[in-house]
């Protein structure tokens, strides 16, 4: 198994290289001049411009910029943002906030989605099931920023149940509302996936056998239906953590969360290649690690799967 893990980690190297190169090219091709933007669209003296271009390697071809970035990243130096802060510090400050937000969203969607999906699957075609199907369809259909603003207005501004924006201090209490918004769409998917999976398992032969040996209905559902139904759901949840972190850009924007999404958004606007690329590299690594974790989890849940 360790051989398998090693192989997967080695495979991550070309992925990271490719992703950073692609992002470098895209930021390079982005219209607008980062130096002018830095000076707030005011005229810049030639000397200052040359100076800054040299400092941020902007005078070199983009492939050289990329190689210089890679060289720095390998020695632990991610470069400096245009506002003069080391990128590593910026990421160190914002990343934990986003992780906290994404994990909260994941817990919310997993707990609610599995419970609702399990219940809906057991009572297929009944009123609860139909309601849940409609609700999940609505949640999937409405864009996340509409949901975000709506919940912010209703629960944050009108009812004051939760703070409407987060600001500097990202405590769990303050992150509740954005976490709900972030988890909503995935909640709908988890619900539907669990429901389908439960329905499928209910008609499995081994479930009938479990009934035939005299197990009470509750035990059959718990031990044989739910557990087997969770395999695809867990796989989905694992992959979803990566998506949640990347998808946090919109939610973090709405609720003004000082997370990595916000950082990336601002850096893209300013054309700050080192910051954008560093953030993306972190994201790619998160994705790679999560998908590896999912595969290992899959093997732990299903004894039929072994990696060599």
């Amino acid at each position: 198994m360790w051989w398998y893990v090693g192989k997967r980690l080695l495979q991550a190297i070309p992925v990271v290289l490719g992703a950073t190169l692609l992002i470098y090219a895209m930021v390079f091709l982005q219209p607008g001049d980062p130096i002018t933007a830095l000076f707030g669209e005011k005229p810049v003296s030639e000397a200052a411009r040359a100076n800054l271009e040299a400092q941020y390697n902007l005078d070199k071809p983009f492939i050289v910029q990329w190689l210089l970035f890679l060289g720095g990243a390998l020695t632990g130096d991610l470069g400096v943002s245009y506002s003069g802060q080391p990128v590593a510090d910026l990421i160190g400050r914002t990343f934990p906030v986003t992780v906290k937000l994404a994990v909260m969203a994941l817990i919310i969607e997993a707990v609610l989605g599995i419970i609702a999906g399990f219940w809906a699957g057991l009572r297929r075609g009944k009123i609860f099931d139909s309601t849940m199907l409609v609700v999940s369809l609505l949640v999937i259909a409405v864009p996340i920023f509409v949901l975000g603003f709506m919940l912010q207005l209703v629960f944050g501004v009108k009812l004051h149940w939760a703070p409407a924006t987060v600001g500097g201090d990202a405590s769990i209490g303050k992150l509740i509302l954005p976490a709900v918004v972030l988890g909503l769409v995935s909640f709908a998917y988890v619900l539907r996936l669990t429901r389908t999976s439960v329905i499928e398992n209910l008609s499995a032969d081994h479930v009938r056998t479990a009934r035939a040996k005299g197990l009470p209905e509750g035990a059959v559902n718990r031990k044989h239906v739910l557990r087997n139904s969770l395999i695809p759901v867990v796989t989905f949840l694992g992959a979803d953590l990566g998506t949640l972190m990347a998808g946090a850009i919109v939610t973090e924007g709405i609720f003004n969360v000082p997370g990595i999404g916000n950082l990336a958004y601002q850096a893209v606007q300013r054309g700050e290649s080192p910051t954008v690329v560093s953030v993306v590299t972190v994201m790619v690594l998160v994705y790679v690690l999560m998908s590896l974790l999912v595969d290992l989890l899959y093997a732990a849940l299903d004894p039929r799967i072994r990696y060599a």
Partner: protein
Amino acid sequence: MSERIEAATEPLLEITDLQVAFRAGKRDIPAVRGANLTVYPGQTVAIVGESGSGKSTTAHAIIDLLPGTGHVTGGTIRFDGRDITHLKRRQREAIRGSQIGLVPQDPMSNLNPLVRVGSQIKEALEANDIAKGNAADKRVVELLEEAGLPDAQARARQFPHEYSGGMRQRALIAMGLAARPKLLIADEPTSALDVTVQQQILDHLDSLTDDLGVAVLLITHDLGLAAERADHLVVMYKGQVVESGPALEILQHPQHPYSQRLIASAPSLASQRLTAQTRAEVRESAVKTAGEIVAEHEGDEFGGEATRIAVEAKELTKVFKLPAGGLGRTIDFTAVDEVSFSLRRGTTTAIVGESGSGKSTVARMVLDLLEPTSGAVEFDGVDISTLRNKKEQLAFRRRVQPVFQNPYASLDPMYSIYRSIEEPLRTHDIGSSKEREATIRDLLDKVSLPSAVMRRFPNELSGGQRQRVAIARALALQPEVIILDEAVSALDVLVQAQILNLLNDLQAELGLSYLFITHDLAVVRQIADEVVVMQKGRAVEQASVVQVFDHPREEYTRKLLDAIPGGSIDLAS
């Protein structure tokens, strides 16, 4: 299996005028229409019928495990002197397992793949308050041993996928008998297993239920098997019991036309009666036609000399490299070991063996879908591994066509029947679309399907109809050799008999040569001329059908023959 019980005893199970229906939309579609049957304590009763006859539905109604929308609409089920037709949930759960056990049909799908086998049996003990905790663990091992599983202590901790099919069925038997029920419902308990395993398991089940005094309700489509194992037969047809009585009496003097047909088609029984003469006529006609075809083909694009031998396998060997854990380490597994045989034009060579014997690997090598490790397959005297240009390969494929076991999986569900049969014609660029349509009509006619079937899709056809379509598709290119890989194994006896007849007719008419691969010796007599018996990758015996059946040389062949259910039963006709 046990002595007839005096009529004075109270019946254990008494089903009176049972009606079961499945709800489709607002309508009830009846599946069982007035079934009556009685089981006395310790007796073995078999319900026999084809799929769709309502035999499994009747059995599942007894313990209220009807699938989906199924429900009892009338009649009564009395068990142990009590009406159990409509029970509350708790009473129902109390009866299941402890009073009535179930051994289900397919051992592959009936164990939870995520739970250790031991734990699954332990559940049955705990749910019925037989034993708890450590005592239950010990009892599980005893039960597995009792069911004939070697090394039960270690086996109990394994997962179902680490068991073979026969072992799983033993585990399911241990589970069904765990709480010592008074009645055991065995629903086609061995139809998914090899014949020799089947016999061991049934023998074991027999002696076990005899010792424990458990009554058995055996559900099967195989009359031979039913007659061998049960004292009393109930024949079901279209949801009704058409005949019931002592097993031998029904077998020798069937009253109802359906029972008569069933007895005529059961391969295990019929092959005793199908005269060697019928087969000889088929062969004679086929060999003659084949000879004419050969004369026509002389010196065509394939290049080889047309010979009397269509296919010859010379010391075929296939070694698979299996991963053995660790870095790229492998162990060699010899699936096929120096197997040689020949297939003469217009005849059938059968390759018989249990699963894992390598017979399907041979088929794939003959089809040039798998490269042999050593040895060669010669078609018309030409080694097929030397056909390396596309044109020659295409010509070879055109003359050798396969029909596979599972008619559900070998037809593309998104293709209409027309398109499925047309595909090989298109691939080989034969005829205009008008001509192709005429060909397809003709092919459907050959396999006795109405031409209206063309526009339909595989899911609208029955298993037998689909297999006919697969045969029509194989015939589309006018091949000379057809490789039939377990082509009738997935079908009901009646349908099986029809398909075998069809294959015989087609062989006589078109001069085809068949390589017939099967695990079921019973059907071999109806179709084959030569038999190759395979065991663990080696051809242990090859001879003519008559010789193999009447004077088997090898111990293994004798074992296979003995395992044919009902083979020893005398038929009056």
